[in-house]
């Protein structure tokens, strides 16, 4: 039996590699909270990534739960913060943008689906006070068959 040539194996691996390089994004923040997004149908894409700032809300992951307990927490960039810090966070993110783009700033709220609304309402109130009115509740797509 003639041997099967494995000379093209690296090519296959390269194709897979290029796929991952194109489709994925370098993770810049480590998620320290549980973040299972809910599912919804009326979704809009966030087009201009540069105008988007992320706020993560969820229960701390196992290794942080020992320190911080299991109540839902806010994570901004790489650390845990409280609702009072949101005003400052909005100002910092706003300063990163040029003047004429500042009013197009969007905040993407990546909230775990098991979180209760208390903390979410607090965050929304703080965002309103800081005049950050465009928000986006991140969600995964779902077909129409199930809710």
């Amino acid at each position, binding site marked *: 039996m003639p041997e099967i040539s494995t000379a093209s194996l690296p090519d296959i691996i390269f194709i897979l*590699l290029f796929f991952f390089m194109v489709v994925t*994004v370098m993770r810049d923040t480590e998620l320290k909270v549980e973040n299972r997004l809910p599912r919804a149908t009326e979704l809009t894409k*966030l087009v201009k990534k540069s105008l988007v700032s992320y706020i993560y809300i969820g229960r701390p992951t196992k290794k942080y739960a020992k320190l911080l307990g299991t109540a839902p927490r806010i994570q901004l960039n790489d650390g845990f913060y409280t609702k009072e810090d949101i005003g400052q966070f909005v100002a910092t993110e706003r300063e990163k943008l040029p003047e004429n783009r500042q009013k197009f700033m969007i905040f993407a709220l990546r909230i775990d*689906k098991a979180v209760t609304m208390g903390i979410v309402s607090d965050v*929304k109130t703080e965002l309103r006070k800081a005049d950050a009115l465009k*928000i986006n509740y991140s969600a995964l797509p779902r077909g129409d068959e199930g809710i």
Partner: protein
Amino acid sequence: MIRKRKSRGPNAINASSMADIAFLLLIFFLVTTTINVDKGIFIILPPWSEEEPEIAKINDRNTFVILLNSHDQLLVKGELMKVERLRENVIEFLENPYRKKTLSESPLKAVVSFKNDRATSYSAYIEVWNELKGAYIDLWNQESRRLYGVDYADLKGNKKEDKEKQKTIRKLYPMRISEAEPDNVTKAQ
């Protein structure tokens, strides 16, 4: 004796380790990157004001009251409802095709009021918002097909006429959803 040299031509480099290098790079990328989810329900919050917003009259026919309690139960206009029924009820309320006295006088006066409890789960909240947005989008699509022959969602080009058309449709059915401060019935986070 003439030795025949088994010649491979100019010496070729052994390329069998190419696959290993490729595997290494692949594993690096798998570990350090994520496939970003960047879609969501887009909301514009009302501006903050120090005074209390005026409390809508509960039994006003132009107000569609939706309540979510801490057990994620949906109460619409005083009656329990399943979330699957919410979208069609909102559409009926806004359009009021049969001119029922209990539903809105006109879409221009209609307001949807939404209140939840601090202990309501976020997924139930998102489901309600999804249905509310869906109801308005369905109505806008309907009007857009009636007036312009295309769906509202297809008018998203950057041309000026498209934006004007979108504005006209939004003026016919303005999205007026007011959210109230959540209750704190049970001591919850």
